[in-house]
């Protein structure tokens, strides 16, 4: 069920401002790919082009191709809604729905799409919460509001919500940047477990995290503020961190800039 993503010649704009320029890369199924790079180089923008969330931003526009196996996400007649069901997303700040209980949050994706049977739903909610390593912490208070959980729990709730609709790819935009080290560890463990079922792309500012969780790492950079971000290189994580082929990557990783 996990699928390969093949991006070619992708540029994304906010109005007339080109945020990322001519990016091509391949994301292997059932792997974890980490995006690293200085702030503002377009990692979030690029990530959001992968499930057509970029165009939700007013003025957002994309050129180029994103192939999911053999389907172009930006081809004519492709429904962004079904793209987003196939490629899920977890955001930087945990954003559970404040009017819904923990149970309803997890069930939201299925319920809001209208296709659900009550008996199935219970099973899916439990499975997703277990999948997000949250079940044991919340099983006694499924009817309490999701916003009453701690930040780390909320983020895992959002992961449970995202995997409940059984996507094939999971995009995560700095999922740990608002969390404490323990919660971060919990989420990193979770990512390790989720790779058996999903293709995962994760944006992170934390080098150690990229080194710990990812199979491949992509380094993005921008020439100057206001210039579009570019992909510098993508390679096996081990190589990027030990012997990158571009000097800028080594400079960034060793902390000489950025």
């Amino acid at each position: 069920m996990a699928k390969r993503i093949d991006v070619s010649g992708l540029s994304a704009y906010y109005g007339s401002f080109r945020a990322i320029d001519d990016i091509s890369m391949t994301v292997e199924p059932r792997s974890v790919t980490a995006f690293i790079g200085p702030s503002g180089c377009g990692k979030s923008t690029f990530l959001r082009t992968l499930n057509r969330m970029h165009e939700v931003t007013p003025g957002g526009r994309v050129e180029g191709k994103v192939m999911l196996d053999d389907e172009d996400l930006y081809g004519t007649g492709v429904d962004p809604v079904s793209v987003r069901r196939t490629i899920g997303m977890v955001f930087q700040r945990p954003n559970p729905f404040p009017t819904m209980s923990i149970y309803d949050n997890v069930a939201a994706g299925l319920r809001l799409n209208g296709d659900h049977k009550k008996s199935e739903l219970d099973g899916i909610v439990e499975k997703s919460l277990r999948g997000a390593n949250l079940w044991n912490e919340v099983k006694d208070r499924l009817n309490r509001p999701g916003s009453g959980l701690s930040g780390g729990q909320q983020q895992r709730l959002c992961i449970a919500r995202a995997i409940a609709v059984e996507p094939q790819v999971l995009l995560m935009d700095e999922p740990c940047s608002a969390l404490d080290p323990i919660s971060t560890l919990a989420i990193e463990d979770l990512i390790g477990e989720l790779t058996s079922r999903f293709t995962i792309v994760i944006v992170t500012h934390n080098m150690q995290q990229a080194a710990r969780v990812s199979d491949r790492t992509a380094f993005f950079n921008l020439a100057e503020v206001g210039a579009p971000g570019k992909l510098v290189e993508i390679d096996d994580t081990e190589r990027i961190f030990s012997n990158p082929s571009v000097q800028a990557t080594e400079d960034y990783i060793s902390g000489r800039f950025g």
Partner: protein
Amino acid sequence: MSQTVMADAAPVDASAPTASLHRPRLPRWAPLGLAAVAAALGTGIGLVAGLDSRIQWGLIAALLYVGLTAVLAGAVEGTRQAKDRLATSFIWVCFLLAVLPLASLIWETVARGVKVLDGYFLTHSMNGVITMEAGGGIYHALIGTLQQVGLATLIAAPVGLLTAIYLVEYGTGRLAKAVTFFVDVMTGIPSIVAGLFILSFWIIILDFGYSGFAGAMSLAILMMPIVVRSTEEMLKLVPNELREASLALGVPKWRTILKVVLPTAIGGITTGIMLAVARIAGESAPILLLVFGSASINGNPFEGAQSSLPYYVYEQWANGNEPSYDRAWAAALVLIAFVMILNLVARGIARWKAPKH
């Protein structure tokens, strides 16, 4: 680093006599005590100087209170505290000035309104009552107000809600700007103009008769911009992250609005609608033009003249005799109670529906 921090922290207040962190403070009851003293002095000065207006007494007391507080705090606590107390006491005085008219209005209405307000008053019309005599009631006006306001809400709330959803969730470009502009213009329409518009359009051109519905249409014109504005504000308060979270789950936009955005904002939206209802419930000008007014019960808002509470108050007052004045006050009291109950209901709904934490 640590040295600069310590250097910054040392002399906070140069006027401090010692390095101690303690400063002399006025006792906790000082503001209340001073207020009592100021009130007593104000009364005393007023009596001695023979000022016959209570307002003058009050103003003297207020000035004395602000002045005394500042002087005393300055002497005991130092200038910074004195400024703080000066501002605080000034705000209290302003608060009292603002609340006083409201309190006296309610007091006056209750005191005069309860005279004839009873079960009979609420359940009888003015049909066949001679205005010079006591008796009669507001049942017909109550029915009229409930029906006219209810119909106006049925028209204005959905239109206003949908307009606001369009403006916040979909509207970009010229059409949205134009709609916003016209909503702004509508906000400023005087009620008599809204009444005249419906009069010329509905009664003169289309040749329908006077009816509660005609009044309701003009009330809806007045209500719509208020609903649009308040709903817009409430929808803008819903964090964009929630919309994105829902869209990223593969939920279509219309469902996202229906199931995520609206439930999050529903408390504020209902409050806004209730306040708009309260606002139009007191309109009398359009009723005068379009519903005509009547002394008897007419339960059909689509045909024939009706009355309404504000119109009733106006009508009774215009009669110019004691029993009519009593009826006017009692009807005003009912109108105020109606609006207050609406407010309370709105607040209750807002609290009940607010996102839980």
